[in-house]
């Protein structure tokens, strides 16, 4: 008998009876304005900037991140200066990215997370030194329940991710440090 059969047989023999069924509940709304999202995003170590407050993105990047070299972008309206070809991608090339500008498709006010589901390479939101995510102000919802209602409307992406703030660790005496392995900073630009 295969392990699969052994496991399933034992479960069938042992499975408890009368476990309650979940039938859903009416969740309370969470305010979903830009300011509500911004307040939570700041609590998790991120930053929110309005697109109209940025005159020139490259000047802004240079000021924020020290240099505007190796800016990789997947936002159509933004011009980067570091391009990667899908066919010839290598880990070394990915590791050069200083700032990645990606498109978020949804923001969640209750936890400051942004949902991303389109990537040239899945490592980009992690390997970049700094992450910038563009988000439409119409795409902010209150809670995770609403987020999954939207995600569920179409086929799930092959890979999708909620990102809430920069990479962080508190493993050394509970001191909170940003930039553990992934981005040292996260800015959400709302347009």
């Amino acid at each position, binding site marked *: 008998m295969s392990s699969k059969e052994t496991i399933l047989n034992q479960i069938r023999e042992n499975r408890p009876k009368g476990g309650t069924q*979940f039938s859903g509940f009416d969740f309370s709304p969470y305010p979903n304005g830009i300011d509500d999202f911004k307040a939570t995003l700041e609590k998790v170590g991120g930053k929110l900037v309005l697109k109209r407050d940025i005159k020139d993105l490259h000047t802004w990047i240079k000021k924020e991140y020290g240099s505007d070299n190796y800016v990789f972008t997947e936002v159509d309206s933004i011009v980067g200066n570091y391009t990667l070809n899908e066919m010839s991608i290598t880990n070394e090339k990915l590791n050069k990215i200083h700032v990645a500008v990606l498109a978020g498709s949804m923001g969640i006010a209750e936890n400051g997370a942004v949902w991303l589901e389109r990537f040239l390479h899945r490592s980009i939101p992690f390997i970049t030194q700094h992450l910038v995510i563009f988000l439409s102000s119409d795409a902010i919802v209150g809670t995770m329940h609403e987020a999954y209602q939207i*995600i*569920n409307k179409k086929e799930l992406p092959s890979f999708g991710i909620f990102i809430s703030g920069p990479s962080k660790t508190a493993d050394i005496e509970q001191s909170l440090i940003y930039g553990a392995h992934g981005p040292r900073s996260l800015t959400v630009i709302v347009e």
Partner: protein
Amino acid sequence: MKGHPELAEKFLQDESRTNWHDETLWWVRSKRDAVASEIKDWEKLRDAASQIKEDTLSNLDEYLLEFEQNALKNGIKVHWAADAREHNEIVLQVLKSKDAWQLVKSKSMLTEECGLNDFLEDHGIEVIESDLGERIIQWMKQTPSHIVMPAIHLKKKDIGKVFSEKLHIRETEDPVKLTEFARIHLRNYFMNTKVALTGVNFAVADSGTFVVCTNEGNADMGVHMADVHIASMGIEKLIPKIEHLGVFLRLLARSATGQPITAYTSHFRKPGKGKEIHLILVDNGRSEILGKSHFWHSLKCIRCGACMNTCPIFRKTGGHSYDYIIPGPIGAILAPHRDPIKYGSLPFASSLCGSCAAVCPVKIDIDKQLYAWRQELTGEKSSLPVSFMGYVLKKPGLFNMGSKGLSILQKLIPWMIDRFFKSYTRGRELPKVPGQTFKDWYKKHT
């Protein structure tokens, strides 16, 4: 064999460290309270999470098959492991098939349970833990003392020392510098590894998707840079539907660390172009616990660690006193299933205050299970002192004589009382028996 009391005594020797541990975990518990109170539906969410898990466990065979079918359709390779040994063999086979001699790992309590690292090292594979806390623990040849904060028992001085030793850097206690050194050190491995392993926080039956939550981003760094992703999950990690994630993700990080959500919540449905995902479904005793009336509820656990942070015994005795992979209240009800003799002292490492059950996001009645374990382990027989007290309480004359006698004895020969109640008076004082009994006082005042 050392039980919880003996190991706890060792931890308690360093008073300032013990106090730091106690206060730090209480601070994490307070953060949990603050964020939980911001969510209006908190109690409804706990009920929902408990119900979803009960439903899952009551129909586990069907959900597992649904999950497998969908995952296979998505191009994920699914393996079944009846026990730890089989799980470890599968990992080794995947590594061998890729000619890989290194495995970059993110945090997984299941692989700790399976003893994967030792097994692989015995077969010549280098294992690199990539979560900062886990890497430190690995360097120090220790085990995690907490399921979410594996290095919570260590001070920055200890960590600085091991960094200096392993990375040949000047000793520092600065957490910013240490984290930066770890970033550089581990990125090198991320860049060059072929195979990476992660745990699984939730697997969703209706879409064959699985979710991994981290704060450091180490799980994603590992698997996206590697060619092969191995994901190890206990069969109880399943949930039926995608929308159920909304319930669990609202609860998990808030309960664990007081964050509204972890920094990264990754949903894996299909492997990336030219890559492979191997998912291992591990039983290792779970289907047996499923058949134990009442105890099966412990399988609802989502490993947030809230019961540890709140537990007065855990905070004051440290995770290593439990001598089991999962310490604290949840560990104390899981461990005896593995070995009731070795872990027999764990259900007694509790004041039964019930704080664990009060914070548990999936409403496991941990305190009741601790009590049930005590009944089971002692064969429902009362201990000698309890039987003796029962006898005395039935005889008023004997009781009166005893209470007077005790007060006289304590005055005249306190050492004898202390010796008699040795196991109780170690580390605490026996309360003074008052000269006047309540009965005498009552007589005088009526």
